[in-house]
């Protein structure tokens, strides 16, 4: 899609949007905090790409980000309102539409606030300054006498002399140039940010009017289903569609081994695809959920590593060494909304409504699948019913587009729950080996860390250790290698495994030398910011020092996830008869810099804690080769009401010394170690493998 970066594209952009204020702007680079070299594309430099002021003073904010429950539809509006100096309620969000919105790499990695936030805020600040210039001309006053407040520009000394943004907009098209970029506001001066603004998507969501991709309707549309193989890697040998053909109004389409049905009714399409008889050749692959970790540890792949100090020297000064391995399983995303899309392919262009975290990317993927130029594919993202990383993949949109092209009608594809589990790109199963040592004063003196197939996010040792090697083998995304099916980003990719291993291992060392896990951490931490968060959590929790296992069932974890600091503490009860674990209380302290929407942040934290308990206690994808055994919520057990801790207390640690940072992933990535450490404190049993199911824990309790 175009970025509206060149004059020609800008004209298209203006034509699309109709009347309003267009302040063309092109001075120096407009790049705040982007990871240069990481992406091919960058955010557009022209702030007109991000906002438009209507004649009525309303503000439309355009972003390639999408809303999937994390609340950015509200927090982004707050950020724009803050810098633009308009009432929060006047901002309307237009999200994830590749025709209208500026390019974005996708909604993932807790990067919206941290990476996109400054870009949007800068756009707002620049637009505000341009509006002040326009007002100066209109009011015939010098700019330095003017101030922007509540969507108006006023004379500082005579508030009756003022003009509204909407009037200044006036349907004109004016080109403006700013000499200097205005600075972003200091968090201490925030008026709109830092407030728990009400979530603007809630009313639609409680009344049923919120539209998800599966709720979109077009005249003449059909519903599609694609024949699913029984296992990943299976090859179609024979297919018989005779029985399916007998269903009235059904249409069956085939392109190689892509066999689909379309029907005016979704339930009949589902019925028809179920009547197709097909035989497959299933590849011989014996790896399963019990043997996968052995395979991971024995699969050759490239190691990337970082070193500090000299491990041998560290080993020489250590008085005690620790060796352990930690294992995490494949975990499903399992959003309540299954992957859904409605594709309308007409000639050489297509419009696709799709529940996706990556509208830019989905466009080229769809285009490639049906042989179109990606500029001619428009992706529109309605509300997304949970993503968690899994909706960066858009197989359903490709299916819908192919079916639409073959059927000559708009086609909607809504994956069944079974398809959702089958086609999911799971959090990859992974293993970590750690060899570490401490000296006579209980300081960690060496740390030799090796993670297998989880990726290197959060694999750093956050403690002050002089001799360190951190190595990561294999990639974490995309499947291949030892994985019999696709894997991908899962809320906090890599970090759930890495932090489970590291923070479990810290407790192993503390317990062995008989030191309270909090004291042991403080002895080995030098990061003052982290120490402050540790203290904030301990104060709220009322942490009592003790040598684990104390029998109290208390555990803790501390972590740095892409610059957001988390310290969590938990109290659990273990039923010694059944081996089941009940989490009674969690205190979660998080320092993410200035918080844009405190209540929204608390909701994200509480939700992540509850979701995280799933992979700690019950979630694990069972499989045999490419055959997925868990294809429903009956056997794949996500948290329920009864799993939720009675008390989840959040402490938002105030910190205006850094820029606003991410919120949604940091609170989940420490959950594994948090619970494992609390279980150890309760029972004296160290669980190195997630999830900690009653089946795994019970035999060790006797």
């Amino acid at each position, binding site marked *: 899609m175009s970025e509206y970066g060149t004059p020609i594209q800008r004209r298209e952009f203006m034509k699309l949007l109709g009347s309003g204020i267009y302040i063309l702007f092109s001075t120096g680079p407009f790049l705040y905090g982007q990871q240069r070299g990481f992406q091919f594309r960058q955010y557009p430099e022209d702030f007109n790409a991000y906002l438009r002021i209507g004649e009525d003073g309303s503000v439309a904010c355009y972003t390639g980000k999408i809303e*999937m*429950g*994390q*609340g950015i539809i509200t927090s982004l509006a707050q950020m724009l309102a803050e810098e633009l100096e308009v009432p929060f309620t006047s901002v309307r969000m237009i999200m994830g539409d590749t025709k209208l919105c500026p390019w974005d790499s996708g909604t993932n990695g807790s990067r919206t606030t941290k990476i996109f936030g400054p870009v949007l805020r800068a756009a707002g600040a620049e637009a505000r300054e341009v509006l002040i210039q326009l007002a100066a001309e209109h009011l015939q006053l010098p700019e330095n006498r003017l101030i922007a407040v509540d969507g108006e520009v006023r004379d500082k000394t005579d508030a009756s002399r003022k003009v509204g943004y909407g009037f200044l907009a006036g349907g004109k098209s004016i080109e403006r140039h700013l000499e200097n970029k205005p600075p972003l506001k200091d968090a201490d001066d925030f008026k709109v940010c830092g407030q728990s603004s*009400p*979530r603007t*998507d*809630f*009313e*639609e*969501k*409680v*009344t*049923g*009017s*919120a*539209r*998800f991709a*599966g*709720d979109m*309707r077009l005249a003449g549309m059909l*519903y599609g289903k694609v024949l699913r193989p029984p296992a990943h890697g299976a090859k179609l040998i024979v297919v018989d569609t005779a029985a399916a053909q007998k269903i009235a109004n059904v249409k069956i389409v085939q392109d190689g081994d892509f066999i689909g049905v379309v029907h005016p*009714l*979704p*339930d009949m399409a589902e019925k028809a695809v179920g009547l197709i008889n097909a035989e497959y050749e299933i590849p011989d692959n014996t790896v399963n959920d019990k043997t996968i970790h052995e395979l991971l540890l024995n699969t050759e792949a490239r190691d990337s590593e970082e070193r500090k100090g000299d491990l041998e020297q560290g080993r020489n000064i250590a008085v005690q060494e620790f060796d352990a391995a930690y294992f995490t399983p494949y975990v499903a995303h*399992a*959003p*309540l*909304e*299954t992957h859904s899309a409605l594709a309308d392919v007409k000639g050489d262009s297509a419009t696709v409504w799709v529940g996706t975290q990556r509208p830019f990317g989905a466009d080229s993927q769809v285009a490639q699948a049906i042989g179109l130029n990606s500029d001619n594919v428009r992706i529109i993202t309605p*509300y*997304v*019913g*949970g*993503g*968690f990383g899994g909706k960066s993949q858009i197989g359903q949109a490709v299916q819908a587009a192919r079916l639409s092209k073959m059927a000559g009608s708009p086609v909607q594809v*809504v994956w*069944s*729950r079974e398809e959702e589990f089958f086609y999911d790109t799971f959090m990859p199963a992974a293993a970590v080996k750690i060899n570490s040592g401490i000296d006579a004063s209980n300081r960690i003196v060496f740390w030799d860390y090796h993670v297998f197939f989880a990726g290197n996010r959060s694999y750093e040792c956050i403690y002050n250790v002089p001799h360190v090697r951190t190595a990561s083998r294999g990639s974490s995304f995309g499947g291949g290698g030892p994985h019999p099916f696709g894997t991908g980003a899962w809320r906090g990719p890599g970090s759930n495994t890495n932090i489970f291993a590291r923070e479990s291992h810290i407790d192993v060392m503390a317990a062995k030398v008989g030191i309270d896990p909090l004291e042991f951490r403080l002895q080995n931490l030098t990061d003052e910011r982290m120490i402050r968060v540790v203290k904030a959590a301990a104060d709220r929790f009322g942490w009592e020092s003790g040598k684990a296992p104390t029998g109290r069932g208390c555990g803790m974890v501390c972590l740095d996830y892409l610059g957001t600091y988390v310290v969590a503490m938990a109290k659990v009860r273990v039923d010694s008869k059944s081996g089941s674990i009940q989490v009674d209380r969690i205190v979660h302290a998080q320092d993410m810099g200035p918080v844009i929407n405190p209540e929204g942040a*608390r*909701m994200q934290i*509480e*939700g*992540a*804690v*509850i*979701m995280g308990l799933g992979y700690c206690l019950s979630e694990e994808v069972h499989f045999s080769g490419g055959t997925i055994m868990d294809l*429903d*919520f*009956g056997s794949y057990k*996500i*948290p*329920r*009401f*009864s*799993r*939720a*801790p*009675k008390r*989840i207390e959040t402490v938002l640690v105030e910190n205006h010394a850094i820029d606003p940072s991410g919120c949604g992933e940091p609170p989940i990535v420490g959950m594994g170690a948090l619970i494992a450490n609390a279980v150890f404190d309760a029972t004296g049993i160290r669980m190195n493998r997630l999830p900690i199911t009653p089946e795994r824990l019970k035999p060790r309790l006797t």
Partner: protein
Amino acid sequence: MERSIQFTLNRRPVQLKTDDERTLLWVLRTDLGMTGVKYGCGENHCGACTIIVDGRSVRSCMVPVKFVEGKEVMTIEGLAENGQLHPLQKAFMEHGAVQCGFCTPGMILKAYSILAENRQPSREEIIKSMDGELCRCGTYNRIIDAVQAAAGEMKGGTHHE
């Protein structure tokens, strides 16, 4: 069997001609435009498709359309009356008991059916009654708070009386 079926949907009479064995969920979503009724699993595991039939909660993925013949059906679209949100809807908003919003219609209607039978449910009673309703975003505690707040707001009466 293809035939004419009549029932009340959100206080209005409806009549449609269709195969009476078709799953109610898809008839509501497709034929009748009630897209607030969500498909989450289609096999009685998640509760996203919960609706109210003659005052009780029913999972619309589990019954054929003929099941509601002559009955009163309410979907989330029918809960607010005359532009007035139901206390449960207000409480879900006020307590932040929503994230992605996909489970929300089913959660609200399940809670509605619980409050119809138990006007002041305890936390434990809510957990027991709602344990089959799934939310992946993890809003459970806030839903419990919202249901109790709505119960208090309704003061033992129902909103529609």
